[in-house]
Structures are given as C-alpha cells and as structure tokens.
C-alpha cells in the first residue's frame, strides 16, 4: 500500500495551475490558450486561399492578382463583382459576414485582414 502510494507519487505529474491573467507580455491576440476555437488560420494560409479564390474568378486576369490588389481600381471589376467575390470568400472560409461589413471589403488587403482577425474562420 505504501509502495503503491510511493510509486504513484513518483509517477504522477505535478499539477500546475496556469495563470492566464497575470501574463501581460505574451501576445495572446492570435493565440487563445485552452480554447475550443483553436483551429485558427495562419496568415500565409489565409493569403494563399484568398488569392486562389480571386484567381479562379472568371472575370479576373490571374496574373495580375497580388495580395494587395484593389478589386475595383486594379482589377477593373464592378461593384457587383465585388459583392460576388465577397460571397465566394464567405463560402471558402465558412464565414457569415454582416451586410454592412461585407460592403466595406474593397481590396484584397482588407479581406485578408478581416478573415485573419475573425475568430471563427476555418
């Protein structure tokens, strides 16, 4: 009995209580510790997927697409095309963007930033 207790005490991993609130220096903006939403996308992945979605749009010339392209100024698209691109991005990342926010997404930069900062993008 005492041997068992001694062996268990030896093997058992000591429990440490993690203090999340007293850690001001760690950048916990994009990392959520012990969260169930931990399938957060990395920035390169977001950029790659957004660029591939825009390149596969039929009215767009694929060679002119960069991560900083503006949909209406650089690619010469219409405002309705803008709406279509935002819908395609919503479908790609399984997001639900409110109407007012979706109206403001005008360029690739904004789209990447919005998707990267959205906690439920996947």
């Amino acid at each position, binding site marked *: 009995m005492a041997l068992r207790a001694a062996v268990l005490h030896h093997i058992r991993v000591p429990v440490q209580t993690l203090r999340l609130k007293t850690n001001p220096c760690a950048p916990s903006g994009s990392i959520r510790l012990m969260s169930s939403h931990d399938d957060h996308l990395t920035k390169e992945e977001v950029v790659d997927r957004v660029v591939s979605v825009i390149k596969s749009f039929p009215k767009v010339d694929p060679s002119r697409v960069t991560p900083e392209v503006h949909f209406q100024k650089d690619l010469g698209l219409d*405002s*309705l095309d803008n*709406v*279509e691109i*935002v*819908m395609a991005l919503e479908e790609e990342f399984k997001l*639900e963007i409110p109407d007012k926010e979706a109206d403001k997404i005008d360029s690739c930069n904004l789209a990447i930033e919005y998707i990267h900062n959205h906690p*439920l993008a996947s």
Partner: protein
Amino acid sequence: MSVATATYLVRRAAQKERVRILYRRALKDTLNWAVHRHLFYEDADLLRARFETNKHVEDPDTIDRLIADGEVQYNKWRHPDPYIVPWAPGGSKFTRNPAPPEGIEIVYNYGREDND
C-alpha cells in the same frame, strides 16, 4: 450649387450601397433555392442580367423606385429555410456551448465528502 451636388452624390452613394446589399441578399437567396452548383450559376447569371439592365439609369427618383421594386421582389422570393453558417445567429450551433463564466473551477475530489 455645390451643396446640391453634394447631397446628390450622397444620395447616389446611399442608393449604390442599397443596391449592393440587395444584390448580395438576392445572390444568397438564389444559392438557397438552387443548391446544385450548375443551376446556381445559371440563376446567378440571370440575376446579374436583371441588375445590369438598369445599370445606366441616372434619375435618383427612378432609381429609388427600382430599388423598392427589387426589395419587394426579394421579400416575395425569400427561402423559408435558408442555409445559415452554424455558429451565426439562426444557425444550429449558435450559443450551443457558451464559455463558462469567470471564476468557475472544477474541484476534483472524486466524490469525497467533507467530513472524511
């Protein structure tokens, strides 16, 4: 004179925003009705053609009337059971597992009583 053009431009900008939001909702609704992708593409092309025919109207009152007509038609054709992303309001996973409030811990005493 510049005040009049400023209000005119503001009004046109508001109308353009209404048109964009209407197009977005109509496109989502088309996707709700036509689930198969080839049917959706055809219906989306028809919807786009309907928007394109009124593209060059200049008079703000006519545009207002056209937008109101479009919204009435959209409300008439709304799908009764639209697809909503699960975690969004109206979806199936919305507020399903809310985060527990602060300060709640689980005490692992394995059923030991206090007076043991």
